[in-house]
């Protein structure tokens, strides 16, 4: 092996004579053992850790014994064999890194022989560490980016919500004024038809604003006293669409006026879940019946909570499908249990959870080949009324001319003058005595000097809160009936359970009925 070959294969080699005087060194040797140069004495620069390094090196020369040379000054340890040569010895050494980390090291690939596996190992370890660092940076970047996106979405949501709310107020004004016009034009069929078109178009617009408000995270799930027959009756087309074309949905509603304190959306979701199950049980089509009827609490209803008034409403979804086996029936409400290939097993479980949360329950009656009936038994909502102070419903009837002459006094608060004007006229025409205010401040002044039976106030007022006004009014007069109105669905915990809520655009007839029922 000539010097050129030696320098490539062992770039840190050192050639010494028999007295260990350095004759020549490889190109990398001075980088690893600082100060090393030809002509010097080897053991001035390195040590092997033996009492007599000279004797030790001579003894291992020509053997396969690996020798480690530690630098006496600055530098790195080298490891290799001692090979006898004509002029003395060749130390065929190479760097021996203590660790596979490059951080802070001055090493470079050229310090190693071309095929030295250490190079690959060092690169691999360093690459892995670098990639972990990059991954950490990426994780932070993703998290920052997600935060930015969330902030942006939230800003858009808020703007969309505000716009939808304001637009809904305009629709409410249109709707209310349509009702005023209709009162004046009761004889003119053609104009009434036109009013109806405007009214229904406003209602469609309102549905869009509601979707926008849902998208902008406005609440849709506030619990309200829901007239269950009315809810189902108004959504028959939607429910039929959910059931699919091959199924006929028959409706038999026998609980008129009965209300359940629930989220209307949640209730509809339950019905849709049950309809889908029923539809899937009838692959060849058929009829699904949606039935409601009242039911009093009985001794056998030990698994159902007790409603305030002991009354329940039963909502049944009846199909004529394949029915359930006993085994399936026993597990039907079990979360994650499903007989469908693509089912997630949450539909029936969530329906039952919903019913239980309302103080009711869900049951299934089914036999194989005989169809299935799922029934929700839900407590009927009613206000706790003190018969001695129940003047209000009497007064309401009065307003319709059915007895007591004292009219219901309503304080209406809305910062939209057109809406206020329409409400005053429509409620006045229904026999109520109406006082109008365009701000909470003005309403407070009225409340200070007069007594009202009902406070009907918009929740969102210019720089004021209808809810705060209601709290103040109710604290001054515990008998006052509070009826809030808004395009937003208010948050439950901001409301007194005794208060009622109507959603804008206001259906005048429904509003009048609500006031009379208070």
């Amino acid at each position, binding site marked *: 092996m000539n010097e050129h070959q030696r320098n490539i294969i062992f770039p840190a080699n050192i050639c010494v004579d028999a007295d260990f005087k350095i004759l020549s060194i490889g190109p990398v040797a001075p980088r690893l053992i600082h100060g090393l140069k030809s002509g010097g004495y080897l053991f001035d620069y390195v040590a092997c850790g033996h009492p007599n390094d000279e004797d030790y090196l001579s003894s291992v020369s020509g053997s396969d014994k690996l020798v480690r040379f530690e630098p006496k000054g600055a530098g790195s340890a080298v490891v290799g064999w001692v090979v006898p040569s004509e002029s003395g010895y060749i130390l065929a050494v190479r760097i021996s890194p203590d660790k596979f980390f*490059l951080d802070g090291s001055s090493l*470079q*690939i050229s310090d190693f022989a071309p095929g030295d596996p250490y190079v690959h190992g060092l*690169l691999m370890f360093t*690459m892995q560490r*670098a990639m972990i660092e*990059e*991954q950490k*940076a990426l994780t932070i970047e*993703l998290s920052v980016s997600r935060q930015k996106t969330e902030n942006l979405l939230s800003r858009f949501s808020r703007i969309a919500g505000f716009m939808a709310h304001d637009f809904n107020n305009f629709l409410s004004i249109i709707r209310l004024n349509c009702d005023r016009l209709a009162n004046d034009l009761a004889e003119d069929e053609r104009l009434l038809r036109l009013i109806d078109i405007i009214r229904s178009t406003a209602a469609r617009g309102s549905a869009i604003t509601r979707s926008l408000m849902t998208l902008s995270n406005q609440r849709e799930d506030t619990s309200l006293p829901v007239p269950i027959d009315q809810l189902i009756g108004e959504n028959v087309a939607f429910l039929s669409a959910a059931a699919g074309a091959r199924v006929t949905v028959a409706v038999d509603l026998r609980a008129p006026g009965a209300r359940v304190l629930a989220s209307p959306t949640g209730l509809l979701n339950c019905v849709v879940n049950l309809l889908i199950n029923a539809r899937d049980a009838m692959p060849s089509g058929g009829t699904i019946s949606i039935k409601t009827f009242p039911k009093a609490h009985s001794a056998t209803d030990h698994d159902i909570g007790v409603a305030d008034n002991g009354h329940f409403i039963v909502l049944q979804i009846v199909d004529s499908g394949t029915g359930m086996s006993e085994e399936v029936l026993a597990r039907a409400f079990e979360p994650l249990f499903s007989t469908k290939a693509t089912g997630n097993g949450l539909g029936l479980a969530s329906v039952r959870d919903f019913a239980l949360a309302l103080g009711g329950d869900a049951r299934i009656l089914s036999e194989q080949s005989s169809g299935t009936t799922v029934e929700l038994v839900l407590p009927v909502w009613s206000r706790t009324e003190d018969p001695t102070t129940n003047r209000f419903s009497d007064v309401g009837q009065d307003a319709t001319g059915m007895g007591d002459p004292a009219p219901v006094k309503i304080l209406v608060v809305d910062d939209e003058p057109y809406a206020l004007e329409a409400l005053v006229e429509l409620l006045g025409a229904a026999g109520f005595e109406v006082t109008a205010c365009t701000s909470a401040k003005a309403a407070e002044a009225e409340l200070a000097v007069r007594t009202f039976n009902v406070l009907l106030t918009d929740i969102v007022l210019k720089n004021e809160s209808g809810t705060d006004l209601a709290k103040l009014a109710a604290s001054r007069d515990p008998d006052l009936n509070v009826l809030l109105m808004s395009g937003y669905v208010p948050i439950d915990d901001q409301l007194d359970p005794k208060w009622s809520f109507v959603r804008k655009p206001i259906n005048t007839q429904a509003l009048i009925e609500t006031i009379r029922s208070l």
Partner: protein
Amino acid sequence: MYGMIHRALRQMVLDERGEEVWSSIQRTANVGLSDFISSATYPDEVTQRLLSTSSEVLGQDSGKMLEQFGQFWIRYAEASSFASILAFTGQDLVSFISNLDRMHRTIEDVMINARMPSFSVLAHDVGQIRVEYRSTRTGLAPFVSGLFLGLLERFNLNGSVSLISEDSKKSIFVIHYE
């Protein structure tokens, strides 16, 4: 190509033209955050799209932009988690270029789908290095020129880079430096 290239391009645009310009490039090139994972390899088509969109939006000749990007790439790698690998590859211009292939082989071992180029120092005299560049990709000679300019900068050398021959398999560069 691998995601680190995408990240470097993004950084270059951000440094020089700001966030708005980068957002515009990102939208036009139809890429998202998932196209910027350092350790992932992406189809060349994505990288090409990013490069051509950048050159369009920046209003720069694509060759000039590639050269600028090559130069930036060295600065970017120096400042990244891979800095110690760069230092290990070589502490002078000749060693660095001579050892690039060994470094690239390791990257190929780590990132299975990565296709790395090859660099050979054909000759070197004082003040001049002749380098052969081979790649299965075409059209990246300006990028390689930029890389060499970046290396001159890294080793505090003044100099220039000339492409003296190019065919479908290889390109020969001469790097002059003081």
